[in-house]
């Protein structure tokens, strides 16, 4: 396994490189519980394949004395734990990528953290891997994290597992221990759909069965780790799948050229082939496959090319060119498995940005069907999905997406969820299937439409949404406004937070989940009323930006008027019309906005009213003025 041909004469270098070039690539990850020796194993692989340079070795010896956990021996884990916090705490926080090669293969290894709180980083490593090395400490056996990581590996579509029973030296190379762990693993991994499971007894620290067979385990006849990694079949299946070409970028350098740039996700396409635009269903032929290295006759899975079509069809980023006889789903509702990454839980009804490889669309989680207990794989009822949780959800998107199921295609079946306020990546999803009703249920287009209804009332429909702290004066201003509008012959309706809670929403409490549902229902009612042509006045504390955004998104553009009733909390507490602040400050009211629960002030409200020192009628007139100016437009 000479990786580095010392003394190779110059003329051989070109031959050597040619051999290198024809090697296949295996991407794998190491996972398992804390202290099972993941980083040590990778350090050992790099060391034994001679990929550690002298200066790195000198630094390693220095660091081993400073931070090492292995006495006088070199601590291989320090080779890969690259962040200062990691070296100090002796743990792995984030996924690290390492590269090595043998005569047969090139490898990209993702070394992933064992702590449960860093599950998102493990998932990051797993999303691009073909194989997972699951480490188990021979003294500990199968742990919670072993099961968790095996489940996530399976969820992310990894088909090959190496069960590395590490620290076998510490149990006296005992075959019975090994056999028990293997049996335990197979018992729970049976349902996870792995194509191969290869158990190997090894010692990362001493090198047993890592890159050579160990004499200490004469009872083990299987391959050593490296041997297995070099020979496990890398799947070529994506070449055989139907053609998928997510359009990344439309290239228009001049009026004569219009090309669609992207990377072939699966299958292949040749000049002259028919292709279909996924979202519109229109078909045409491939006229040219452009690269800087010359035009190609055929583009295959993995290649980044620019396609020119025979006909000028409407295709933009986020659409897909596909095989006409085997098309992806195009739908705006689907079911997916979700891994949640963020400290703020996923709550049904909230809005997120859904990003596929090239498409981006607003989405709502319409239902959390169940959460998966990653230890027992049982399905649990849940109202929210918390950090590191896995659940099955229904999604509705604002516009149709083109996708395959993740099981059929890892590239066209995946998505991430992004928080629209913070832009954080809060979750990742694997699509299961399109929901049929998305295809069959269409909105009834009625001839008497919203415009007609509003016109009959000589007004323009609107939803005036008052937000602000309890006691800020929302209801007072809304009442004055309604009187004013009524006197002018306008048709209005007032939805008040407290009143709605006595009827429509009386089943809801004050948890985060219930607040979201509360807002959603009120917003839906307001939307129907606006559709009927009314001017709806909604007076709701509605403390969270994302929920107000949810309401805004339901309305027709321009119909939602957010009015921020801005009164300092000291003043609200002084007014305290319902005695709530006194109760909250005594700790008798949980989740009270401003005291024990946050209020997120609007960033760009249509109107910002500071109430202190201004007469409520004057504030109502200001809103009316804004409404009048809209009617004129």
């Amino acid at each position: 396994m000479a990786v580095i041909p010392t003394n190779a004469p110059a003329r051989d270098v070109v031959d050597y490189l040619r051999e290198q070039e024809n090697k296949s690539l295996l991407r794998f990850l190491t996972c398992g519980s804390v202290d099972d020796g993941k980083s040590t194993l990778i350090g050992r692989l790099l060391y034994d394949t001679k990929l550690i340079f002298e200066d790195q070795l000198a630094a390693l010896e220095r660091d081993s004395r400073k931070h090492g956990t292995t006495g006088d021996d070199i601590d291989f884990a320090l080779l890969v734990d690259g962040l200062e916090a990691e070296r100090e705490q002796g743990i792995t926080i984030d996924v690290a990528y390492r590269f090595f090669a043998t005569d047969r293969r090139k490898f990209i290894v993702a070394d992933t953290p064992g702590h449960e709180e860093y599950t998102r980083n493990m998932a990051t490593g797993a999303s691009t891997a073909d194989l997972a090395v699951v480490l188990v400490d021979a003294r500990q056996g199968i742990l919670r994290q072993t099961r968790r990581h095996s489940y996530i590996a399976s969820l992310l579509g990894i088909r090959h597992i190496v069960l590395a029973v590490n620290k076998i030296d510490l149990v006296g190379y005992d075959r019975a221990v090994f056999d028990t762990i293997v049996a335990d693993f197979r018992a729970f991994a049976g349902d996870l759909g792995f194509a191969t499971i290869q158990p190997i007894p090894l010692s990362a620290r001493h090198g047993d069965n890592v890159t050579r067979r160990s004499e200490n385990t004469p009872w083990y006849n299987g391959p050593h780790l490296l041997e297995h990694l070099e020979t496990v079949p890398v799947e070529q299946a994506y070449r055989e799948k139907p053609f998928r070409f997510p359009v990344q970028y439309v290239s228009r350098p001049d009026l004569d050229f219009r090309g669609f740039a992207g990377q072939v996700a699966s299958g292949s396409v040749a000049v002259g082939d028919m292709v279909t635009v996924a979202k519109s269903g229109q078909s045409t032929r491939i006229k040219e496959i452009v690269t800087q290295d010359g035009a190609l006759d055929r583009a295959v899975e993995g290649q980044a090319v620019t396609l020119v079509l025979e006909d000028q069809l409407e295709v933009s980023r986020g659409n897909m060119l596909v095989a006409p006889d085997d098309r992806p789903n195009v739908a705006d509702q689907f079911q997916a498995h979700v891994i949640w990454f963020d400290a703020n839980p996923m709550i049904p009804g909230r809005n997120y940005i859904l990003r596929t490889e090239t498409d981006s669309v607003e989405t709502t989680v319409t239902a959390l069907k169940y959460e998966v207990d990653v230890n027992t794989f049982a399905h649990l009822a849940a109202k929210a999905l918390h950090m590191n949780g896995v659940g099955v959800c229904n999604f509705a998107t604002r516009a149709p997406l083109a996708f395959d199921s993740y099981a059929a295609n890892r590239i066209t079946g995946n998505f991430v969820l992004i928080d629209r306020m913070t832009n954080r990546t809060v979750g990742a999803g694997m699509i299961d299937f399109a929901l049929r009703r998305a295809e069959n249920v269409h909105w009834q287009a009625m001839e008497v439409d919203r415009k007609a209804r509003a016109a009959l009332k000589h007004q323009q429909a609107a939803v005036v949404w008052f937000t602000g702290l309890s006691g800020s004066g929302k209801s007072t201003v809304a009442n004055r406004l309604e009187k004013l509008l009524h006197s002018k012959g306008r048709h209005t309706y007032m939805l008040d937070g407290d009143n709605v809670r006595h009827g429509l929403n009386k089943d809801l409490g004050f948890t985060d989940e219930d607040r979201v549902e509360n807002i959603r229902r009120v917003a839906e009612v307001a939307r129907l009323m606006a559709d009927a042509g009314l001017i709806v006045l909604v007076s709701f504390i509605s403390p969270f930006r994302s929920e107000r955004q949810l309401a805004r998104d339901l309305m027709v553009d321009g119909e939602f008027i957010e009015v921020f009733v801005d009164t300092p909390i000291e003043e609200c507490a002084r007014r305290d019309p319902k005695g709530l602040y006194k109760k909250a400050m005594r700790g008798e009211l949980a989740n009270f906005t401003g005291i024990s629960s946050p209020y997120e002030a609007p960033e760009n409200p249509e109107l910002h009213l500071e109430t202190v020192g201004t007469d409520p009628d004057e504030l109502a007139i200001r809103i009316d003025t804004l409404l009048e100016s809209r009617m004129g437009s």
Partner: protein
Amino acid sequence: MTSLTHLQRLEAEAIHIFREVAATFSRPVMLYSVGKDSSVMLHLAMKAFYPAKPPFPFLHVDTTWKFRDMIAFRDRMAAERGFDLLVHVNPEGIEQAISPFVHGSSVHTHVMKTVALRQALDKYGFDAAFGGARRDEEKSRAKERIFSFRNAAHAWDPKNQRPEMWKTYNTRVAPGESIRVFPLSNWTELDIWQYILKENIPIVPLYFAAPRPVVERDGMLVMVDDDRMPIGKDDRVEERMVRFRTLGCYPLTGAIESDAATLEDIVREMLTARTSERQGRMIDKDEAGSMEKKKREGYF
């Protein structure tokens, strides 16, 4: 047709990344450092947008202490490939006459590279910047995402990186925030040389061995590139057959003795090397976490 080779996959991955940035950011820039990795990046950027030109400018943060050959090569490439070249030098550094010989490597690097880069990014309001960093270079790089988020102060928070799933990148940033993008993340040094050889990519001649005037200092061979180099009475300027494995500011970049005058020679030398590539760079040596620290401050 057989499966794509390792190198073809790396090339396609990089092209995909270039296009992703062009499609989703309003003001991207490529940081062009003139070294071999930058040469590969330039080559890939040309491929990614062919037949169009790359739809972003190339920024060189000049410290005024780069090898003269690098500047000549930079200007030649800009003219030949027709890309839009921006050069930024920290004006405060010029005013204070910052010199690695006088102020030391860490002050020089901070003022002329880290601060200068932040200045340039702010000046033009770039929201995405391509860099040529590779994960095999250094331990903290191995942990970095391909799309690496920076806050409005250009700082990297290594403990709170966005999860990066598949190649479905989160390209959203708020005003003032930005993303550093590393299309060569998964390339090794060998991959780079192999690709340069296969694609016949032009690189700065300093990578090839030639007789050059050098002075030995603290075990490092420093090339006398211009007359700003102070020559003490104990210094001996010698003509030696040397070349460079990495390129940066000439006072801070050690030469190695070598006869490797062709690409094939270089690759062979690399395959038998016993020291890593960054060994010739003074800025990494201080302590194990030094690169991570610089990156948190906004260094590439």
